């Protein structure tokens, strides 16, 4: 039964090949997107941290995004 399922009545190579290509491509795009997002988050958090404490305070008070990125990056650290 398992052999039948894997061979898909001799269409196994085509069926499994199509599904594999689809999921590998989806996985790679997910990985690349996540990697880029994390890189930008890290760089943004680092740039905020490099600001003088006064300017940093102003940026965090005025930008919800900056404070969210800072808090999420400190969580990952």
């Amino acid at each position, binding site marked *: 039964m398992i052999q039948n399922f894997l061979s898909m009545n001799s*269409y196994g190579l085509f069926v499994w090949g199509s599904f594999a290509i689809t999921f590998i491509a989806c996985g790679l795009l997910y990985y690349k*997107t996540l990697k880029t997002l994390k890189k930008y988050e890290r760089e943004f958090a680092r*740039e905020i941290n490099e600001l003088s404490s006064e300017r940093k305070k102003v940026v965090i008070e005025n930008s919800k995004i900056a404070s969210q990125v800072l808090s999420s990056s400190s969580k990952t650290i």
Partner: protein
Amino acid sequence: MFKILNLSNIFYWIEKLIGFINSIFFILLLVALSFALIFSPPDYLQGDSVRIMYVHVPSAWIGLASFSSIAILSIAHFIFKIKNIKLITKSIAPIGLMFTCLAIVTGSIWGQPTWGTWWVWDARITSMLILALFYIGFISTHKFITDENKANKISSIIAIIGLINIPIIKYSVDWWNTLHQPASIKLTGESSIHSSMLMPLLLMFFVLILYCALIFLMKYKTEIIRIKKKNLNRL
């Protein structure tokens, strides 16, 4: 209403939505794959090779829908000059390109057992290849043109010209004599696909749409951070 459209609020909701999609995605994927690979019946003519349809058809739909959205949003960008629109189109394009390529590749794999060939210069297949080229043109302008306004303008023109190709893809099987079969699922009129195959197909489509939403949100979030980072550097 406009408060919701504020980038900070959008950013907050993006985080929530990414978390939500991540929490349900793998369960839904397992259910959809079980239906596509186990529970759905083989076709009376094509046998088990019909299962390729469960990745091929949703990929083609997503490729077409993504480009249509990009083109319509590009027209809106020309009229209203809202910068946010360009962030959205830039985030959709890589998803659309990947699914268009997947539709071509999986279609080619399906073609071998059903038509006896990997490739023919058939109207449907060729017009899908042209769609992939439009996507590559759109993405390349953002990658290689450093002047953002110029890149936005050129990419919008590419998207609007590419919109002409969408009805050509849709009706290619009716206008020309092609190897590709006509549409089995119609929005208006009766579909010629049995519910035992239609249900897994729609389920796979839904799961892949969720995946697209996840990638879109992550890319959009990256674009927002990129802009905020740029503004920080200007300070």
